[in-house]
């Protein structure tokens, strides 16, 4: 268990700036998720923490000690690699047991630990196989098991669930959450799946082009996105973002007329989550009136998409909602609904 501190850390590949200068503190025992689209520098950041990638500038501290020049083996880290990094010439059991072997555990102790860990990731029956005889999801679980077979100072997990099927992913997510609760080991977790980020994280760092654009608790990231990028990245279905103008306390856009308490300005984007809209069947007052464009039943609710001119708005209605496509409907914000306003040019929250 340790606090991890990045101070003005920067990474360049030749002249290409992969991660621009920035600082980040990961608290002791925290579960920090790096969230962002593919290619935004999540893996690079993690590899710098692991010691696999040289840090171009800045300091990396683990547990209060500067570790820039420490080899990975002395950092007491366990890592799940995005592309597994298994040992192809070893069996699954040998793969999982290798970190223990390096630390001088005897065969008996190793076998017991390995069996127990394999059980957690549902690999119990495959211990004798080699990685080449496993599916992608199974390999990923071997990589995961190898990381959690011992208790390090720091866990680094690079999209550890990306290749599992939906059901197993939910199971493993719960397993990871429980493990973190049980061991309390500081964890840095990389994903591009916002659902994983929301469910697992103590805090989420949303990354874009190498830069952390917002660092906060999942709750705050969801309820108060700092900019358009975060607003559109978090939430499924994503937040409705409507381009319009504010004049005399009213936000207007095609089909939209909504009183807001903000100063007049043009070029503004209004954001509201589908969950915070109520469907009113008749043509009425409120946020938005449009023609029913699509209905998607998700099981516990129905996603309703309305369209008017260039404006498309989605709302979450009851599971029993039904109406013919093309019907005129209207949406009103629920009582206490949050309206988010962003500057269209800078993307920042206003």
């Amino acid at each position, binding site marked *: 268990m340790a606090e991890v501190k990045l101070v003005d850390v920067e990474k360049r590949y030749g002249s290409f700036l992969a991660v621009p200068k920035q600082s980040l503190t990961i608290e002791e025992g925290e579960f920090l998720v790096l969230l962002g689209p593919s290619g935004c520098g999540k893996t690079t950041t993690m590899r710098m923490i692991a010691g*696999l990638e040289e840090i171009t500038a800045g300091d990396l501290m683990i547990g209060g000690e500067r570790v820039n020049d420490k080899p990975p083996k002395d950092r007491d880290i366990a890592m799940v690699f995005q592309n597994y990094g298994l040992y192809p010439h070893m069996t699954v059991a040998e793969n999982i047991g*290798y970190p223990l072997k390096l630390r001088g555990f005897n065969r008996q102790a190793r076998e017991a630990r390995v069996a127990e860990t394999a059980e957690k990731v549902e690999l119990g029956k495959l211990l004798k196989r080699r990685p080449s005889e496993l599916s992608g999801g199974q*390999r990923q679980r071997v990589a995961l098991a190898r990381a959690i077979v011992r208790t390090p100072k720091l866990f680094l997990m690079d999209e550890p669930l990306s290749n599992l099927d939906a059901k197993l992913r939910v199971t493993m997510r719960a397993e990871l959450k429980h493990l973190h609760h049980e061991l309390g080991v500081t964890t840095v977790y990389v994903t591009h799946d916002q659902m994983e980020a929301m469910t697992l994280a103590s805090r989420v760092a949303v990354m874009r082009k190498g830069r952390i654009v917002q660092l906060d608790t999942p709750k705050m990231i969801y309820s108060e996105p700092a900019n358009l990028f975060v607003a559109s990245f978090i939430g499924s279905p994503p937040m409705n973002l409507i381009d319009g103008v504010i004049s005399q306390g009213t936000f207007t856009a095609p089909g939209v007329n909504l009183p807001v308490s903000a100063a007049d300005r043009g070029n503004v984007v209004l954001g509201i989550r589908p969950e915070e809209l109520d469907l009113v069947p008749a043509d009425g007052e409120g946020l938005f009136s449009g023609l029913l464009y699509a209905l998607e039943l998700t099981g516990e609710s129905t996603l309703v998409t309305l369209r008017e001119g260039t404006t498309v708005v989605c709302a979450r209605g009851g599971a029993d909602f039904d109406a013919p496509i093309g019907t005129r409907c209207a949406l009103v914000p629920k009582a206490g609904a949050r309206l988010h306003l962003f500057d269209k040019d800078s993307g920042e929250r206003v």
Partner: protein
Amino acid sequence: MKRIFLWWGERALLLLVSCIVLFPILWMFLTAFKRPRDAYSISLHFKPTLSNFVTVFSDPWNLGEMVVNSVTVAATTVLIAVPCAALAAYSFSRFRVRGRKFLFFLILSTQFIPAVVIILPFFLMFRTLGLLDTRIALIVVNLAIVTPFVIWMLKGFIDAIPTDSEEAALIDGASRFRVIRDIVLPMAAPGVLTATIFCFILTWNEFLFALILTRRNAVTLPVGLVSFRTEQGDLWNLMSAAGVMITVPIFIMALLIQKHFTRGMTAGAVK
């Protein structure tokens, strides 16, 4: 039609080349079991005998000593060259050091120097050191010849291994040496084996340096062959028997290489 023609053409050409290559070897094997008077006939009708082998192992030929010399020199060379070359090849493959390319070229360039050019300096050097006609001299010379070649060969194999598994091992707590021992070498095993055998064959067959640097005590098998050219003429039957002794180990190794060559070890490391 054209295809069939090509197919047969290809086979015929292969057969022809095989015959040209294999005929002398076949001839040698047959001669090794012939009596002196049958040696010059091409006839397959002769009474085979093992007397040639008995003769070459007894006085004055004493092939046994040469076998010991050859095995010692080749085995020691391999045992030193392959581990050293493996470490060098790993470093060349993995570490981005300044001047790396130039250094690698320098090592390779030693292979382009014809042996005859440097044989005299070697002779003088070993004479000064008092190492003429010793196995140590031969081992040193062979190391100089073989190591660059093995480095170059192993680097190719190590380059082809993805670094993911190594990085995982580094994180899991292994030192560089441990990574090389536990991860790289097992994954490069077919390459290491191939390099080992090539290295052995090169040393085993080395002739020129052994001829110049040895006289009586450290004579190796290829040089020993020359002694069958006597004032009484060339003793073909004895020379062939000795030739068989030289070739058989190489044949066995070639078979071993073939078996291991096809087995890929990197499958399954990544998705």
